[in-house]
Protein backbone atom coordinates (compact mmCIF):
# COMPACT_ATOMS: atom_id res chain seq x y z
CA UNK A 1 0.00 0.00 0.00
CA UNK A 2 1.56 3.27 -1.13
CA UNK A 3 0.67 6.22 1.04
CA UNK A 4 0.38 9.46 -0.93
CA UNK A 5 -0.15 12.93 0.53
CA UNK A 6 -1.68 15.46 -1.84
CA UNK A 7 -0.95 18.79 -0.20
CA UNK A 8 -4.08 20.88 0.28
CA UNK A 9 -3.55 24.57 0.91
CA UNK A 10 -6.99 25.63 -0.19
CA UNK A 11 -6.11 26.53 -3.77
CA UNK A 12 -7.95 24.82 -6.55
CA UNK A 13 -9.26 21.46 -7.43
CA UNK A 14 -7.27 18.65 -5.86
CA UNK A 15 -9.88 16.04 -6.56
CA UNK A 16 -8.72 15.48 -10.10
CA UNK A 17 -5.16 14.88 -8.88
CA UNK A 18 -6.43 12.40 -6.28
CA UNK A 19 -8.67 10.68 -8.83
CA UNK A 20 -5.82 10.29 -11.31
CA UNK A 21 -3.62 8.75 -8.59
CA UNK A 22 -6.45 6.41 -7.61
CA UNK A 23 -6.73 5.30 -11.21
CA UNK A 24 -3.22 3.79 -11.13
CA UNK A 25 -3.27 -0.01 -10.96
CA UNK A 26 -1.45 -0.17 -7.62
CA UNK A 27 -2.87 -0.09 -4.11
CA UNK A 28 -2.72 3.45 -2.76
CA UNK A 29 -3.98 5.35 0.21
CA UNK A 30 -4.40 8.97 -0.85
CA UNK A 31 -4.85 11.74 1.64
CA UNK A 32 -5.64 15.30 0.60
CA UNK A 33 -4.22 17.17 3.56
CA UNK A 34 -2.15 19.96 5.05
CA UNK A 35 -1.36 17.99 8.21
CA UNK A 36 2.42 18.08 8.59
CA UNK A 37 2.55 14.72 10.31
CA UNK A 38 0.72 13.00 7.46
CA UNK A 39 2.86 14.72 4.81
CA UNK A 40 6.10 13.87 6.64
CA UNK A 41 5.21 10.17 6.85
CA UNK A 42 3.86 9.80 3.32
CA UNK A 43 5.73 7.60 0.82
CA UNK A 44 5.04 10.10 -1.97
CA UNK A 45 4.03 13.75 -1.86
CA UNK A 46 2.21 15.80 -4.52
CA UNK A 47 2.22 19.61 -4.45
CA UNK A 48 -0.54 20.81 -6.81
CA UNK A 49 -1.82 24.32 -7.26
CA UNK A 50 -3.93 26.53 -9.45
CA UNK A 51 -4.75 30.21 -9.31
CA UNK A 52 -2.65 33.27 -8.60
CA UNK A 53 0.82 32.82 -7.08
CA UNK A 54 0.46 35.48 -4.37
CA UNK A 55 -2.59 33.77 -2.87
CA UNK A 56 -0.92 30.37 -3.21
CA UNK A 57 2.30 31.48 -1.50
CA UNK A 58 0.27 33.25 1.17
CA UNK A 59 -1.55 30.04 2.08
CA UNK A 60 1.60 27.92 1.73
CA UNK A 61 3.37 30.08 4.32
CA UNK A 62 0.34 30.46 6.58
CA UNK A 63 -0.04 26.68 6.84
CA UNK A 64 3.69 26.04 7.16
CA UNK A 65 3.68 24.11 3.87
CA UNK A 66 6.98 25.84 2.99
CA UNK A 67 8.69 24.14 5.93
CA UNK A 68 7.18 20.70 5.46
CA UNK A 69 7.93 20.66 1.72
CA UNK A 70 11.57 21.58 2.43
CA UNK A 71 11.63 18.81 5.00
CA UNK A 72 10.29 16.07 2.71
CA UNK A 73 12.69 17.19 -0.03
CA UNK A 74 15.56 16.83 2.47
CA UNK A 75 14.48 13.40 3.64
CA UNK A 76 14.35 12.11 0.04
CA UNK A 77 10.59 11.55 -0.34
CA UNK A 78 9.60 11.57 -4.02
CA UNK A 79 7.88 14.92 -4.65
CA UNK A 80 5.76 15.74 -7.69
CA UNK A 81 4.85 19.41 -8.14
CA UNK A 82 2.15 20.37 -10.64
CA UNK A 83 1.47 23.71 -12.38
CA UNK A 84 1.50 26.47 -9.77
CA UNK A 85 3.05 23.85 -7.45
CA UNK A 86 6.05 23.89 -9.79
CA UNK A 87 6.11 27.68 -9.89
CA UNK A 88 6.00 27.82 -6.07
CA UNK A 89 9.25 25.79 -5.91
CA UNK A 90 11.15 28.46 -7.83
CA UNK A 91 13.02 31.48 -6.48
CA UNK A 92 10.78 34.27 -7.71
CA UNK A 93 7.68 34.90 -9.84
CA UNK A 94 6.88 38.02 -11.84
CA UNK A 95 3.16 37.46 -11.21
CA UNK A 96 1.24 39.83 -8.88
CA UNK A 97 3.99 42.49 -9.00
CA UNK A 98 6.59 39.98 -7.87
CA UNK A 99 6.32 37.16 -5.33
CA UNK A 100 9.13 35.19 -3.66
CA UNK A 101 8.89 31.41 -3.99
CA UNK A 102 10.20 28.50 -1.91
CA UNK A 103 13.59 28.66 -3.62
CA UNK A 104 13.95 24.87 -3.75
CA UNK A 105 14.84 24.97 -7.46
CA UNK A 106 17.02 27.68 -9.03
CA UNK A 107 15.08 29.69 -11.58
CA UNK A 108 12.36 32.29 -12.01
CA UNK A 109 8.77 32.46 -13.24
CA UNK A 110 8.07 34.87 -16.08
CA UNK A 111 5.03 36.22 -17.94
CA UNK A 112 4.45 35.04 -21.50
CA UNK A 113 3.69 38.63 -22.45
CA UNK A 114 0.88 40.22 -24.38
CA UNK A 115 2.69 40.18 -27.72
CA UNK A 116 3.65 36.55 -28.10
CA UNK A 117 3.70 35.31 -31.67
CA UNK A 118 4.21 31.97 -33.36
CA UNK A 119 7.51 31.11 -34.99
CA UNK A 120 7.32 31.23 -38.76
CA UNK A 121 3.77 32.35 -39.40
CA UNK A 122 3.71 35.31 -36.98
CA UNK A 123 0.24 34.29 -35.70
CA UNK A 124 -0.57 36.10 -32.46
CA UNK A 125 -0.58 33.58 -29.64
CA UNK A 126 -3.27 33.68 -26.99
CA UNK A 127 -2.39 33.90 -23.31
CA UNK A 128 -3.10 31.79 -21.27
CA UNK A 129 -1.30 29.00 -23.09
CA UNK A 130 -4.29 26.67 -22.96
CA UNK A 131 -4.54 23.23 -24.49
CA UNK A 132 -2.47 20.28 -25.62
CA UNK A 133 1.16 20.91 -26.47
CA UNK A 134 4.10 18.61 -27.12
CA UNK A 135 6.75 17.94 -24.51
CA UNK A 136 10.23 16.92 -25.60
CA UNK A 137 11.86 14.61 -23.07
CA UNK A 138 15.25 16.32 -22.94
CA UNK A 139 16.54 14.23 -20.03
CA UNK A 140 16.14 10.57 -19.29
CA UNK A 141 14.02 10.15 -16.16
CA UNK A 142 12.02 7.32 -14.53
CA UNK A 143 8.86 9.47 -14.78
CA UNK A 144 9.02 9.47 -18.59
CA UNK A 145 9.03 5.66 -18.74
CA UNK A 146 6.53 4.32 -21.30
CA UNK A 147 5.54 7.81 -22.48
CA UNK A 148 6.08 8.32 -26.21
CA UNK A 149 8.58 11.14 -26.91
CA UNK A 150 6.88 14.44 -27.80
CA UNK A 151 3.54 13.31 -26.36
CA UNK A 152 1.02 16.07 -25.86
CA UNK A 153 0.06 17.18 -22.37
CA UNK A 154 -2.63 19.62 -21.25
CA UNK A 155 -1.39 23.07 -20.22
CA UNK A 156 -3.16 26.10 -18.84
CA UNK A 157 -0.89 28.91 -17.64
CA UNK A 158 0.16 32.48 -18.37
CA UNK A 159 3.54 32.31 -16.60
CA UNK A 160 6.40 29.94 -17.37
CA UNK A 161 9.56 28.75 -15.66
CA UNK A 162 13.00 29.78 -16.77
CA UNK A 163 15.54 27.54 -15.03
CA UNK A 164 19.02 28.85 -14.23
CA UNK A 165 20.63 25.76 -15.69
CA UNK A 166 19.57 23.48 -18.57
CA UNK A 167 20.65 20.57 -16.34
CA UNK A 168 17.43 21.02 -14.37
CA UNK A 169 15.17 20.72 -17.39
CA UNK A 170 13.65 17.29 -18.01
CA UNK A 171 10.97 18.35 -20.49
CA UNK A 172 10.83 21.22 -22.91
CA UNK A 173 7.87 22.83 -24.65
CA UNK A 174 7.59 25.68 -27.13
CA UNK A 175 4.88 28.35 -27.12
CA UNK A 176 6.28 31.29 -29.01
CA UNK A 177 9.40 30.75 -26.92
CA UNK A 178 10.91 27.57 -25.50
CA UNK A 179 10.19 27.00 -21.81
CA UNK A 180 10.65 24.34 -19.14
CA UNK A 181 7.65 21.99 -19.11
CA UNK A 182 9.29 19.69 -16.56
CA UNK A 183 12.14 20.14 -14.09
CA UNK A 184 13.92 17.36 -12.24
CA UNK A 185 16.48 17.35 -9.49
CA UNK A 186 17.14 14.45 -7.11
CA UNK A 187 13.76 13.49 -5.58
CA UNK A 188 11.87 16.45 -7.10
CA UNK A 189 9.96 16.18 -10.37
CA UNK A 190 7.92 19.24 -11.27
CA UNK A 191 5.67 19.79 -14.27
CA UNK A 192 3.96 22.85 -15.73
CA UNK A 193 1.25 20.79 -17.43
CA UNK A 194 -1.60 18.92 -15.75
CA UNK A 195 -0.90 15.18 -15.94
CA UNK A 196 -4.29 14.53 -14.31
CA UNK A 197 -5.92 16.13 -17.38
CA UNK A 198 -3.56 14.68 -19.97
CA UNK A 199 -5.30 11.39 -20.58
CA UNK A 200 -3.10 8.34 -21.11
CA UNK A 201 0.29 10.11 -21.06
CA UNK A 202 -0.63 11.88 -17.84
CA UNK A 203 -1.92 8.74 -16.12
CA UNK A 204 1.30 6.95 -17.08
CA UNK A 205 3.29 9.77 -15.48
CA UNK A 206 1.33 9.35 -12.22
CA UNK A 207 1.88 5.59 -12.36
CA UNK A 208 5.60 6.17 -12.86
CA UNK A 209 5.62 8.59 -9.96
CA UNK A 210 4.04 5.99 -7.67
CA UNK A 211 6.69 3.46 -8.75
CA UNK A 212 9.57 5.93 -8.26
CA UNK A 213 11.90 5.71 -5.27
CA UNK A 214 13.05 9.33 -5.67
CA UNK A 215 16.38 8.43 -7.26
CA UNK A 216 17.56 9.12 -10.77
Amino acid at each position, binding site marked *: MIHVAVIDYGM*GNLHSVAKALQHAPVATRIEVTHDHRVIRQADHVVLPGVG*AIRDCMGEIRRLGIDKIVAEVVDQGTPLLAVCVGLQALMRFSEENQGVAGLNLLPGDVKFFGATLSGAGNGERL*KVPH*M*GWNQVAQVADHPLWRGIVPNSRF*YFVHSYYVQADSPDLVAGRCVYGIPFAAALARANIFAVQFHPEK*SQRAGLTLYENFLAWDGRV
Partner: protein
Amino acid sequence: MSLAKRIIPCLDVDNGRVVKGVKFVAIRDAGDPVEIARRYDEQGADELTFLDITASSDNRQTLVQVVEQVAGQVFIPLTVGGGIRNTDDIRRLLNAGADKVSINTAAVSNPDFVQQAAEKFGSQCIVVAIDTKKVSPAGQAGRWEIFTHGGRKATGLDAVEWARRMVSFGAGEILLTSMDRDGTKSGFDLGVTRAIAEAVSVPVIASGGVGTLDHLVEGILQGHADAVLAASIFHFGEFTIEQAKQRMQQAGIEVRL
Protein backbone atom coordinates in the same frame (compact mmCIF):
# COMPACT_ATOMS: atom_id res chain seq x y z
CA MET B 1 5.75 21.47 -32.61
CA SER B 2 2.99 23.78 -31.43
CA LEU B 3 -0.23 24.01 -29.52
CA ALA B 4 -3.01 21.86 -30.99
CA LYS B 5 -6.37 23.35 -31.92
CA ARG B 6 -8.98 21.67 -29.79
CA ILE B 7 -12.15 19.73 -30.62
CA ILE B 8 -14.71 19.88 -27.84
CA PRO B 9 -17.86 17.76 -28.00
CA CYS B 10 -20.70 19.40 -26.12
CA LEU B 11 -23.22 17.40 -24.12
CA ASP B 12 -26.51 19.17 -23.38
CA VAL B 13 -27.77 17.50 -20.23
CA ASP B 14 -31.41 17.53 -19.18
CA ASN B 15 -32.31 15.70 -16.01
CA GLY B 16 -29.27 13.45 -16.24
CA ARG B 17 -29.63 12.56 -19.92
CA VAL B 18 -27.83 13.94 -22.95
CA VAL B 19 -30.28 15.61 -25.33
CA LYS B 20 -29.86 17.69 -28.41
CA GLY B 21 -32.31 20.23 -29.65
CA VAL B 22 -32.73 22.32 -32.74
CA LYS B 23 -32.87 26.03 -31.95
CA PHE B 24 -33.20 25.20 -28.27
CA VAL B 25 -36.15 22.84 -28.55
CA ALA B 26 -34.99 19.54 -27.10
CA ILE B 27 -36.05 16.70 -29.33
CA ARG B 28 -33.73 13.75 -29.37
CA ASP B 29 -32.40 11.70 -26.50
CA ALA B 30 -28.74 10.97 -27.19
CA GLY B 31 -28.00 8.80 -24.19
CA ASP B 32 -26.17 8.40 -20.93
CA PRO B 33 -23.68 11.22 -20.26
CA VAL B 34 -21.04 9.05 -18.58
CA GLU B 35 -21.10 6.53 -21.41
CA ILE B 36 -20.94 9.27 -24.04
CA ALA B 37 -18.13 11.06 -22.23
CA ARG B 38 -16.09 7.86 -22.14
CA ARG B 39 -16.67 7.27 -25.83
CA TYR B 40 -15.49 10.78 -26.76
CA ASP B 41 -12.47 10.43 -24.51
CA GLU B 42 -11.53 7.18 -26.28
CA GLN B 43 -11.98 8.85 -29.66
CA GLY B 44 -9.54 11.60 -28.66
CA ALA B 45 -11.72 14.54 -27.61
CA ASP B 46 -9.50 17.31 -26.26
CA GLU B 47 -12.01 18.49 -23.66
CA LEU B 48 -15.67 17.95 -22.84
CA THR B 49 -18.33 20.56 -22.19
CA PHE B 50 -21.52 19.80 -20.29
CA LEU B 51 -24.33 22.31 -20.54
CA ASP B 52 -27.12 21.87 -18.04
CA ILE B 53 -30.38 22.72 -19.72
CA THR B 54 -32.49 21.46 -16.83
CA ALA B 55 -35.01 23.94 -15.54
CA SER B 56 -35.49 22.82 -11.95
CA SER B 57 -32.97 23.08 -9.15
CA ASP B 58 -33.65 19.50 -7.96
CA ASN B 59 -32.35 18.17 -11.21
CA ARG B 60 -29.24 20.34 -11.05
CA GLN B 61 -27.95 18.04 -8.34
CA THR B 62 -28.15 15.29 -10.97
CA LEU B 63 -25.58 17.13 -13.08
CA VAL B 64 -23.19 17.40 -10.14
CA GLN B 65 -23.39 13.61 -9.80
CA VAL B 66 -22.81 13.18 -13.53
CA VAL B 67 -19.71 15.39 -13.33
CA GLU B 68 -18.43 13.38 -10.36
CA GLN B 69 -18.84 10.10 -12.21
CA VAL B 70 -17.24 11.39 -15.40
CA ALA B 71 -14.29 12.96 -13.53
CA GLY B 72 -13.44 9.60 -11.96
CA GLN B 73 -13.14 7.93 -15.36
CA VAL B 74 -12.21 10.53 -17.93
CA PHE B 75 -8.92 12.40 -17.53
CA ILE B 76 -9.29 15.35 -19.86
CA PRO B 77 -10.53 18.86 -18.99
CA LEU B 78 -14.23 19.17 -18.19
CA THR B 79 -16.21 22.39 -18.52
CA VAL B 80 -19.66 22.69 -17.01
CA GLY B 81 -22.18 25.44 -17.70
CA GLY B 82 -25.84 26.27 -17.40
CA GLY B 83 -27.54 28.13 -14.59
CA ILE B 84 -24.40 29.16 -12.71
CA ARG B 85 -25.40 32.18 -10.60
CA ASN B 86 -23.02 32.43 -7.65
CA THR B 87 -19.67 31.32 -6.28
CA ASP B 88 -21.30 28.44 -4.37
CA ASP B 89 -22.51 27.00 -7.68
CA ILE B 90 -18.95 27.22 -8.99
CA ARG B 91 -17.38 25.66 -5.93
CA ARG B 92 -19.84 22.76 -6.03
CA LEU B 93 -18.98 21.98 -9.66
CA LEU B 94 -15.21 22.35 -9.20
CA ASN B 95 -15.38 20.06 -6.17
CA ALA B 96 -17.30 17.53 -8.23
CA GLY B 97 -14.40 17.46 -10.70
CA ALA B 98 -15.10 20.22 -13.23
CA ASP B 99 -12.00 22.11 -14.37
CA LYS B 100 -13.80 25.12 -15.75
CA VAL B 101 -17.25 26.60 -15.42
CA SER B 102 -19.07 28.49 -18.11
CA ILE B 103 -21.01 31.58 -17.04
CA ASN B 104 -23.65 32.93 -19.40
CA THR B 105 -26.77 34.80 -18.29
CA ALA B 106 -25.37 35.68 -14.87
CA ALA B 107 -22.52 37.55 -16.59
CA VAL B 108 -25.04 39.74 -18.40
CA SER B 109 -27.26 40.42 -15.40
CA ASN B 110 -24.29 40.93 -13.06
CA PRO B 111 -20.93 41.46 -14.81
CA ASP B 112 -19.15 41.89 -11.47
CA PHE B 113 -19.87 38.22 -10.80
CA VAL B 114 -17.31 37.30 -13.47
CA GLN B 115 -14.71 39.42 -11.71
CA GLN B 116 -15.51 37.90 -8.31
CA ALA B 117 -15.37 34.40 -9.74
CA ALA B 118 -12.04 34.99 -11.50
CA GLU B 119 -10.52 36.47 -8.35
CA LYS B 120 -11.74 33.63 -6.21
CA PHE B 121 -11.04 30.65 -8.46
CA GLY B 122 -8.59 32.01 -11.04
CA SER B 123 -9.20 33.04 -14.63
CA GLN B 124 -8.10 29.62 -15.87
CA CYS B 125 -11.40 28.11 -14.77
CA ILE B 126 -13.76 30.92 -15.76
CA VAL B 127 -15.26 30.62 -19.22
CA VAL B 128 -17.74 33.27 -20.29
CA ALA B 129 -20.33 31.96 -22.74
CA ILE B 130 -21.78 34.53 -25.07
CA ASP B 131 -24.76 33.97 -27.33
CA THR B 132 -24.85 36.28 -30.31
CA LYS B 133 -27.15 37.18 -33.18
CA LYS B 134 -26.31 39.24 -36.19
CA VAL B 135 -28.16 42.55 -36.12
CA SER B 136 -26.61 44.33 -39.11
CA PRO B 137 -28.41 44.11 -42.46
CA ALA B 138 -26.90 41.92 -45.17
CA GLY B 139 -24.22 43.69 -47.18
CA GLN B 140 -23.23 46.03 -44.37
CA ALA B 141 -20.31 45.75 -41.94
CA GLY B 142 -21.05 43.00 -39.44
CA ARG B 143 -22.53 43.86 -36.08
CA TRP B 144 -23.61 41.29 -33.54
CA GLU B 145 -25.39 41.62 -30.23
CA ILE B 146 -25.64 39.54 -27.10
CA PHE B 147 -28.88 37.62 -26.55
CA THR B 148 -29.92 35.68 -23.46
CA HIS B 149 -32.62 33.14 -22.62
CA GLY B 150 -31.80 30.81 -25.47
CA GLY B 151 -31.62 33.65 -27.97
CA ARG B 152 -35.05 35.09 -27.17
CA LYS B 153 -34.03 38.15 -25.19
CA ALA B 154 -32.06 40.98 -26.76
CA THR B 155 -29.69 42.92 -24.52
CA GLY B 156 -28.49 45.62 -26.91
CA LEU B 157 -24.89 44.81 -25.97
CA ASP B 158 -22.38 44.78 -28.81
CA ALA B 159 -20.84 41.30 -28.92
CA VAL B 160 -17.24 42.32 -29.62
CA GLU B 161 -17.27 45.01 -26.92
CA TRP B 162 -18.85 42.58 -24.49
CA ALA B 163 -16.23 39.91 -25.14
CA ARG B 164 -13.46 42.45 -24.52
CA ARG B 165 -15.12 43.57 -21.33
CA MET B 166 -15.51 40.01 -20.04
CA VAL B 167 -11.81 39.36 -20.66
CA SER B 168 -10.89 42.55 -18.78
CA PHE B 169 -13.03 41.22 -15.91
CA GLY B 170 -11.02 38.01 -15.82
CA ALA B 171 -12.62 35.55 -18.25
CA GLY B 172 -9.95 33.02 -19.20
CA GLU B 173 -11.74 31.81 -22.30
CA ILE B 174 -14.75 32.79 -24.43
CA LEU B 175 -17.33 30.24 -25.58
CA LEU B 176 -18.96 31.96 -28.53
CA THR B 177 -22.27 30.67 -29.87
CA SER B 178 -24.10 32.03 -32.86
CA MET B 179 -27.80 31.71 -32.08
CA ASP B 180 -28.54 32.27 -35.75
CA ARG B 181 -26.65 29.11 -36.59
CA ASP B 182 -27.17 26.90 -33.55
CA GLY B 183 -28.83 23.66 -34.57
CA THR B 184 -28.97 24.60 -38.25
CA LYS B 185 -25.96 22.56 -39.44
CA SER B 186 -25.10 25.38 -41.84
CA GLY B 187 -21.67 26.17 -40.35
CA PHE B 188 -20.32 28.68 -37.83
CA ASP B 189 -20.97 32.39 -38.19
CA LEU B 190 -17.39 33.03 -39.26
CA GLY B 191 -17.80 36.81 -39.17
CA VAL B 192 -18.49 37.07 -35.47
CA THR B 193 -16.02 34.30 -34.68
CA ARG B 194 -13.19 36.13 -36.37
CA ALA B 195 -14.19 39.52 -35.01
CA ILE B 196 -14.09 38.25 -31.43
CA ALA B 197 -11.09 35.93 -31.83
CA GLU B 198 -9.07 38.88 -33.07
CA ALA B 199 -10.41 41.29 -30.46
CA VAL B 200 -9.48 39.33 -27.33
CA SER B 201 -6.22 37.99 -25.91
CA VAL B 202 -7.70 34.75 -24.52
CA PRO B 203 -8.71 31.58 -26.41
CA VAL B 204 -12.08 31.56 -28.22
CA ILE B 205 -14.20 28.45 -28.73
CA ALA B 206 -16.47 28.62 -31.78
CA SER B 207 -19.91 27.06 -31.37
CA GLY B 208 -23.24 26.82 -33.16
CA GLY B 209 -24.00 25.45 -36.58
CA VAL B 210 -21.59 22.59 -37.24
CA GLY B 211 -23.01 20.14 -39.76
CA THR B 212 -19.92 18.88 -41.59
CA LEU B 213 -16.25 18.31 -40.81
CA ASP B 214 -15.32 21.14 -43.14
CA HIS B 215 -17.25 23.51 -40.88
CA LEU B 216 -14.78 22.67 -38.11
CA VAL B 217 -11.87 23.47 -40.43
CA GLU B 218 -13.49 26.80 -41.41
CA GLY B 219 -13.93 27.76 -37.76
CA ILE B 220 -10.17 27.50 -37.25
CA LEU B 221 -8.80 28.72 -40.56
CA GLN B 222 -11.33 31.44 -41.35
CA GLY B 223 -12.86 32.14 -37.95
CA HIS B 224 -9.45 32.05 -36.22
CA ALA B 225 -10.95 30.15 -33.30
CA ASP B 226 -8.64 28.29 -30.92
CA ALA B 227 -11.13 25.48 -30.41
CA VAL B 228 -14.30 24.22 -32.05
CA LEU B 229 -17.32 22.86 -30.26
CA ALA B 230 -19.99 20.61 -31.74
CA ALA B 231 -22.73 18.37 -30.50
CA SER B 232 -25.08 16.61 -32.86
CA ILE B 233 -22.57 15.57 -35.52
CA PHE B 234 -20.87 13.47 -32.87
CA HIS B 235 -23.81 12.31 -30.78
CA PHE B 236 -25.65 10.45 -33.48
CA GLY B 237 -22.58 8.74 -34.89
CA GLU B 238 -22.37 10.75 -38.12
CA PHE B 239 -18.69 11.39 -37.44
CA THR B 240 -16.16 10.39 -34.84
CA ILE B 241 -13.78 12.84 -33.18
CA GLU B 242 -10.98 10.96 -34.88
CA GLN B 243 -12.46 11.62 -38.34
CA ALA B 244 -12.83 15.28 -37.44
CA LYS B 245 -9.18 15.49 -36.41
CA GLN B 246 -8.01 13.75 -39.55
CA ARG B 247 -9.90 16.23 -41.68
CA MET B 248 -8.42 19.11 -39.73
CA GLN B 249 -4.94 17.69 -40.06
CA GLN B 250 -5.39 17.31 -43.83
CA ALA B 251 -6.27 21.00 -43.89
CA GLY B 252 -2.93 21.79 -42.24
CA ILE B 253 -4.26 22.35 -38.72
CA GLU B 254 -2.22 21.11 -35.76
CA VAL B 255 -4.26 18.54 -33.82
CA ARG B 256 -3.65 15.99 -31.08
CA LEU B 257 -3.88 12.55 -32.69
